[in-house]
């Protein structure tokens, strides 16, 4: 029966204040089942406080073949990092 179930991507937020992160994928027939399955498969060791699920087909992914044009131009632009001046101690999370 599993062959007929669509694939879902699971995002879990570990603690309040932190963002949801991709944890993995699973099969489920509908949204509710996807949430329940995600809870059982990915949060049984107390990993999460919030879960998002989305059908994998709704994710548009970049094509690895285009990596050159997409990402390489950024490799030699060190001036885009804020590393050329000293940050005061009071400024956090940079």
């Amino acid at each position, binding site marked *: 029966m*599993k062959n007929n179930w669509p694939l879902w991507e699971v995002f879990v937020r570990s603690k309040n204040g932190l963002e949801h992160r991709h944890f993995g994928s699973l099969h489920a027939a509908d949204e509710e089942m996807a949430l329940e399955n995600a809870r*059982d*498969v990915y949060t049984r060791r107390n990993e999460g406080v919030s879960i998002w699920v989305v059908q994998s087909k709704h994710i548009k992914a970049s094509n690895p073949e285009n990596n050159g044009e997409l990402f390489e131009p950024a490799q030699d632009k060190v001036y885009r990092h804020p590393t050329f001046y000293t940050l005061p101690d009071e400024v956090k999370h940079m």
Partner: protein
Amino acid sequence: MKNENIIQYIYGIADNALILGQRLSELCGHGPSLETDIALTNMALDLLGQTRSYYQYAAQLMADGKTEDDIAFLRIEREYKNVLLVEQPNKHFGYVITRQFFYDVFHLLLLQELQNSKDEILSAVAKKAIKEVSYHQRFSSDWVKRLGDGTKESHQKVQDAVDDLWKFTDELFHMTQDDMLAVESEIGVDISLLKEKYYQRINKVLEEATLTTPETKWFQKGGKQGIHSEHMGYLLSDLQYMQRTYPNMEW
């Protein structure tokens, strides 16, 4: 209420969790999909965890050196006080879900009352278990609806399971003498009062699942007195094998 009777009252609750947990753990590695396999095993672990809390308390009341393991593994069949429903075998996934659903609805109603027990330990165990069992009920209810309102085959299978297991539901509300003593001393729950709400909830889900509520008025009981169905002996031989073969063995 004498300790002896409290212990029997505890068995009446805890043995259900142990035996249903054992049935679910038989499916570990055999679930219909990886996700449902893990879900069923999770529920088995919840139930075994609850069982331990109850048995540890019972062992403490016995005060004769016996432990939770003695209670779980070394009683004879007649000394287990679980209802017949939970010992029924894992025929197919729809059957497992229906058995679970019939028990979960009762289990949650029971715990919601047991948390008001005058016995502090029973009340604490109930409070902790309510969250687990709320999820069990959600999981099994959703699956009953999904299967009932699913394909022609899944509908038929789950309807057959409902028809077959229905006769075991009435026993859930059967009051033993220890139940009555526990109610009198305000440590236990008057389960006979839960019956109406139970069938309301069950019928609501069955209706949503496009399933038919059986009309039979014939019900089977006996488990709560220790008189079990033929399946129980096989279950216990699995459950008790290690302790019987290697007495006092530990992990």
